[in-house]
């Protein structure tokens, strides 16, 4: 599948933003201080979420019609994602008012709960957009939405730890990030093992359906140059480098941030610098992971063009 850069930026940035809002919401629910640090975190999360959502409209043919995507939540995970994203702005906006208005607002804990719920629902819907597509065997896994949640939670906790450090708050977010990131990376590892070992669900014989046909080969393509379907579904640039890129992704989203978290704990004077490095590395790491998520995914329609079907049997070893 062709990696749409605006979608990768969206899921990386908004994922971290929603992850941050999730932990912030839980902290407020648990009686965390509704102070300037909370306000700063709310705003940082809002900026990440909003930039991400805004960029996601860039891959649309008609961004001005994006509001229509809120209408089909009964059947469409993309529509549900939109509804959840818009709905999450309600507790976020009320919390903002509660934190800036003199005297505050009542029910900060409830708003925190709603913020955490909305953020996790939105990320879950994002993952389900991919996981619900049976046409892409590499995406059609129950693990996929959990991975989106895990990486959003891990990067969000990391950003919140950074914001806390800048605001001079001693928090547990570094510990949370140190637990969630390895869990998400382990799950990603399991995911890669599963897609590498998966059997191809369909081949050219099923695609063409001709009874008794064997040894099917492409004789003539239907067009001389790639069309939309081949460009969108047949993207194959990264597959040769998949092993190398997987290691890069894991190094950037796991090893470097964990090292940064440990150094920040050991050297409090340099905590902000180490956490900034950890955030930047994790961001790039998730970006690479998302890019691979697209580039390694193979679409069944490519069977008609003679492509190897899903399930990679030996391609990555």
């Amino acid at each position, binding site marked *: 599948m062709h990696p749409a850069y605006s979608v990768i930026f969206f899921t990386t940035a908004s994922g971290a933003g929603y992850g941050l809002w999730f932990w912030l919401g839980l902290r407020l629910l648990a009686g965390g201080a509704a102070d300037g640090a909370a306000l700063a975190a709310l705003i940082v999360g809002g900026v990440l979420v909003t930039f991400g959502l805004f960029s996601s409209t860039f891959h649309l043919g008609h961004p001005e019609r994006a509001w229509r995507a809120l209408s089909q939540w009964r059947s469409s*995970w993309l529509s549900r994602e939109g509804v959840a994203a818009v709905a999450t702005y309600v507790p976020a906006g009320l919390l903002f008012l509660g934190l800036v208005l003199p005297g505050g607002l009542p029910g900060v804990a409830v708003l925190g709960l709603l913020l955490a719920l909305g953020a996790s629902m939105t990320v879950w819907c994002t993952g389900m957009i991919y996981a619900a597509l049976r046409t892409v065997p590499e995406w059609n896994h129950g693990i996929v939405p959990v991975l989106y949640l895990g990486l959003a939670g891990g990067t969000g906790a990391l950003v919140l730890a950074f914001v806390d450090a800048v605001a001079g708050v001693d928090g547990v977010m570094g510990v949370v990030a140190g637990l969630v990131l390895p869990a998400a990376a382990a799950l990603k590892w399991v995911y890669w093992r599963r897609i590498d070992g998966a059997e191809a669900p369909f081949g050219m014989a099923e695609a063409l359906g001709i009874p008794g046909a064997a040894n*099917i080969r492409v004789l003539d393509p239907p067009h001389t140059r790639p069309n*939309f379907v081949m460009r969108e579904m047949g993207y194959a640039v990264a597959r040769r480098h998949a092993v190398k890129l997987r290691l890069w992704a894991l190094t950037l989203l796991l090893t470097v941030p964990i090292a940064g978290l440990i150094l920040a704990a050991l050297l409090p004077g340099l905590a902000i610098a180490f956490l900034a490095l950890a955030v930047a590395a994790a961001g790039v790491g998730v970006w690479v992971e998302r890019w691979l998520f697209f580039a390694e995914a193979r679409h069944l329609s*490519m069977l008609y063009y003679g492509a190897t079907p899903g399930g990679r049997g030996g391609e990555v070893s």
Partner: protein
Amino acid sequence: MTNLPGATPKKLGLVIDLDTCVGCHACVTSCKEWNTGGYSAPLSDHDPYGADPSGAWLNRVHSYEMEIGGAGRTVHFPRSCLHCEEPDCVTVCPTGASYKRAEDGIVLVNPDTCIGCKLCSWACPYGAREYDHDDGVMKKCTLCVDRIYNDTIPEEDRVPACVRACPTGARAFGDLGDPDSDVSALVAERGGFDLMQEFGYKPVNKYLPPRAPSEAPTAPEPDAETIPAPRDRLERLFAWVDAKLSA
């Protein structure tokens, strides 16, 4: 609405005969010609006469080699929207622009509400939808919805453009939900099949398999040539010569 309509009273679709298709691409070009001016207008092209042409087309013809019953075959394989009964290309649409008509089962994209997110094309295992980069919306086979119900064109033209154009009669159009229709009879007689049946979208369009060489009908023997009775002396002379030589 992107919920599916459930069972439709009619299931309009195509039956494509892989035995008689000769891969001439007349259905492809006639489709493009009609639809770039009809419901799907425009079907944009980029660099159409240059080195890297591309564009939105609603029908593509592949050619494959294969073995059937141990014998080699070349099979030309037209591929377009199958107007499935239960396709996710409709349900994944976030705006309701992708829909299946309750009255006849045709799957359409409303070009006025499509946001061009391309998710429907991701949900199609048949690669039947093509995005129009200039128009910013998804394009697909409409079963020539603007021909088949069109009272302003001659009755024989009220079939999809691809069916009208096919020089070998390899494409038939009709109601596959009616067991007594011509197309249903054709499917029953020839053993029509679904593409990627196991996937479960329940395609309406059916394909007819290549016939085994021994079953293929042969052309009838021509009648023996008869020479009309001579009309004048010269012809009588030739007739006499012909009779002597034939003896």
